[in-house]
């Protein structure tokens, strides 16, 4: 790492008149291994390294970045960041206000037992091929993919306030998916989540914990069962979401609308706005008394955990929804002024060449009292919906429609037959106000999603959710053309 170069850059920005500036150096390694239908589809290793300069100058912001550490390049990028800021000030009628913050000095490394980059590729491939083989043990299986992902991120943050923060993260994870088909009919099942790897701030020990081979037969067989299953019923019913679908629900209908930059309009051209407008702050009934949702950047193992955010603010735990009342936003130093508060430390960039944005940390649904079996036993009639399949929500995060891979009938407190193609739809406040129970902490799991999209240019952030199953009453299910 080039700490002295970065320190010198900060001095230069200061001497050139930047009111505030920060520089993030980031080095990221990513290893992806993917096996598709008994063939090695991808085995790749990527390293990405560079620095991003964010400068407040003339009352406006500018950002430039580079990956070459020569004096000439650095000088050019410092000049560019200031020029861009000056150009912003030509347009903006109001000067950006950026509250000062005491300098922080810290060094942080996330915990892990086995460095995944020191585990042999042969070991990883054996794990994936063995899983793939189990998945393909039926002629009805036409598609089997098993994947592992490992990330190592090293960051050094320095700003004009004197902060110097060094952080290092290791993340490990994976997933597998399988599709069974018969004629033109096809059904998919995935584990432990769908579409992408489930990741943790952890080492290779987490891959062992995921235990693909033990779970593969059940998931494969469920895909085959779905081929003969009837379509999920339509109408209004009670639904219980499994922990992963609850995570998606929290992510889309709480995590995004509480991002204060969205509320203030910063994402109107892309991700959209939010129905949780400023006048609702602290008083809006978002959900039932069972609903308490927190943002916890200090949660051990969560991929939304860190020591300091990308503005030099210490990681925090806050309550976003307290017993159903909307109580806080995710904020940055600049946006927090809109609610007369200090930043709660949610600014992160996915890479050195991108600016930090307000991002979810680990957004968690606080557990209730019943276990999952008790929750099901307490439900007369309904559906137990497992593993997200499709997701769509409007630009204000109100009107949504989600699908899951499988639904299990609930009748008189017992699980019954499987249904295919389940879909449910609602609006956010109605849905959360109809939450009648959340399962206990033993039923909760720490999910890690590596693909949360936001910003232009697009950024894919790693965010966490500690969630278990939850029950919702009078929900519309089965919308389909």
């Amino acid at each position: 790492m080039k700490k002295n170069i970065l320190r010198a850059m900060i001095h230069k920005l200061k001497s050139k008149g930047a009111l505030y500036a920060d520089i993030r150096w980031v080095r990221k390694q990513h290893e992806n291994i993917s096996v598709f239908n008994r063939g090695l589809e991808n085995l790749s290793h990527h390293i990405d390294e560079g620095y991003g300069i964010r400068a407040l100058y003339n009352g406006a912001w500018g950002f430039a970045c580079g990956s070459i550490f020569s004096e000439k390049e650095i000088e050019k990028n410092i000049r560019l960041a200031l020029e861009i800021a000056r150009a912003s000030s030509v347009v903006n009628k109001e000067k950006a206000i950026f509250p000062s913050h005491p300098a922080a000095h810290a060094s942080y490394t996330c915990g892990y037992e086995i460095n995944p980059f020191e585990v042999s590729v042969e070991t990883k491939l054996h794990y994936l091929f063995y899983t793939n083989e189990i998945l393909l043990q039926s002629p009805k299986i036409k598609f089997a993919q098993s994947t592992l992902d490992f990330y190592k991120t090293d960051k050094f943050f320095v700003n004009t306030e004197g902060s110097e923060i060094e952080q290092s993260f290791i993340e490990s994870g994976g997933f597998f998916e399988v599709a069974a088909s018969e004629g033109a009919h096809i059904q998919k099942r995935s584990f432990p989540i769908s579409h992408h790897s489930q990741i943790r701030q952890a080492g290779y020990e987490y891959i062992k914990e995921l235990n693909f081979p033990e779970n593969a037969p059940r998931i494969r067989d469920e895909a085959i069962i779905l081929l003969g299953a009837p379509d999920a019923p339509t109408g209004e019913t009670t639904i219980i979401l499994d922990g992963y679908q609850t995570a998606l629900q929290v992510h889309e209908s709480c995590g995004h609308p509480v991002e204060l930059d969205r509320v203030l309009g910063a994402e109107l051209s892309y991700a959209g706005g939010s129905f949780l407008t400023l006048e609702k702050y602290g008083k809006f009934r978002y959900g039932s008394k069972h609903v308490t949702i927190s943002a916890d950047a200090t949660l051990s193992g969560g991929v939304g955990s860190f020591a300091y955010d990308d503005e030099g603010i210490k990681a925090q735990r806050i309550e976003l929804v307290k017993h159903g009342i909307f109580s806080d936003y995710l904020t940055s130093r600049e946006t927090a002024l809109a609610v007369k508060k200090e930043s709660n430390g949610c600014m992160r960039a996915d890479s050195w060449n991108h600016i930090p944005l307000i991002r979810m940390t680990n957004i968690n649904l606080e557990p209730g009292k019943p276990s999952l079996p008790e929750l099901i036993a307490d439900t007369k009639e309904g559906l137990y919906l497992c593993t997200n399949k499709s997701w769509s929500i409007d630009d204000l995060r109100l009107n949504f429609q989600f699908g899951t891979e499988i639904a299990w009938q609930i009748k008189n407190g017992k699980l019954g037959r499987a249904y295919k193609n389940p879909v449910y739809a609602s609006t956010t406040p109605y849905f959360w106000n109809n939450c009648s129970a959340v399962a206990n902490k033993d039923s909760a799991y720490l999910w890690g999603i590596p693909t949360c999209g936001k910003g232009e240019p697009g950024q894919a952030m790693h965010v966490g959710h500690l969630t278990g199953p939850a029950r919702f009453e009078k929900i519309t299910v089965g919308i389909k053309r």
Partner: protein
Amino acid sequence: MITSGHLKERLAPFTKTKEADKVGVVYFRTGLQVSRFANSSIHQHLSDENQIVYFRVLLDNRMGLASTNSLDEQNLTETFKKALRMARLKLDIRENKTIVSFKPLKTSTGVNFKKTTHTSALSRAEILRKLFTDAEDMKVTFSGNFYNGLTQLAVISPEGKMNYQDYSFAGIKLIAARGESSAYASRVDYDIEKLKPQEIAGAAIEKCLLGLKKTSLEPGCYDVILEPAAVAELITWLNYIGFGAKSVAGETSFLYNKAGKRVSGKRVSIYDYGRDKFTFILPFDFEGVSREKTYLIKKGIAGQPLRDSYYAKLLKTKSSGHANFPDDVDGPLGHNLVMEGGTAPESQIIQSTKKAILITRFHYINGFLDTPRALMTGMTRDGTFLIEEGRIKCALKDMRFTESILEAFSRITRVSKERKLIADHLETLGSIYAPSLYIKDFTFTS
């Protein structure tokens, strides 16, 4: 920007190694200058440049792949050695991968405009200031982005031959807003001079002012007129779930087992062609293979999926030149998708409409509901209107559709003659050239 000559000089020598059977190199770079604004104020203003060099190393039928964003000699050597170490792993597995040899293609010219790549933040800001000031008079604010940049792609074959292409690009996206009304307009081009921001602003403002009072429609089936941006979003999802050979090999695609059979209406013809003059050209794929004109659907009849060398082998056919980034696991995809136009002038489609919903664009489409049927859901956004007797009657609150898009496309009754290039260089590589469509009985579920 690094010149093609310099790239070849730096990267081609790695293909001469005697330590491997074959070596291929891919270089991709994008440099972006972006003014992003909200509430008529620039809030994110940036320069974003990054590059990636991939080394593919083949040894005893084993492929090693490693990449770096640094062209520094030491980093390149380390990355090459890493790929080599991966290729040396003794694994008893089926791989079917190769590094393709090719005859170099001539680099297309006339697509790299100096003015576009050199436009400064200040120039963009001054244009935006004028747009914002003019809009203020109508109590309209703008959100959106205004950007310019350059893309470079080079692929070096095991024989040290190089395919190289660069192009400049610029785009403006405007969301005009007043009260609860918002309206979208955009334009992209190789040449920043052709963007005509004031024209785009005028279109967005006009639509925004038409939407100040909104009415709700009950869910149900309505005829719709989809503007090109909305059509392009549907094609994007068709591409993702079904145009590529991976989804056909896995039998999840709507094209699986359908070659030569009807999958949609006669008015539907969609192809991908890397040299299509109406799209941002990418004449060759990430294996260096020429991107051939490939009909996915022709007059409603299913064609062949898009292939790279790996899936071509699996499907016992030839590559169509649609290899994705070397480490991408989505498989081959279209980057130059074109939907053929019809005969109806756009204005006539509206004028001849008795009753239909005009949709400017969609939000958050998801096409994973039932991929063999291309069943999708999504919301309308930034300009939804009820057309009656050939005129806009009123603005509508946003609605959710749930539809099999192939079935909906079989109910197309009119396709516009005019088409529009849709691309988002801030989000993804590739572009779509699409017409407006009139579709009967489109299903809205909420």
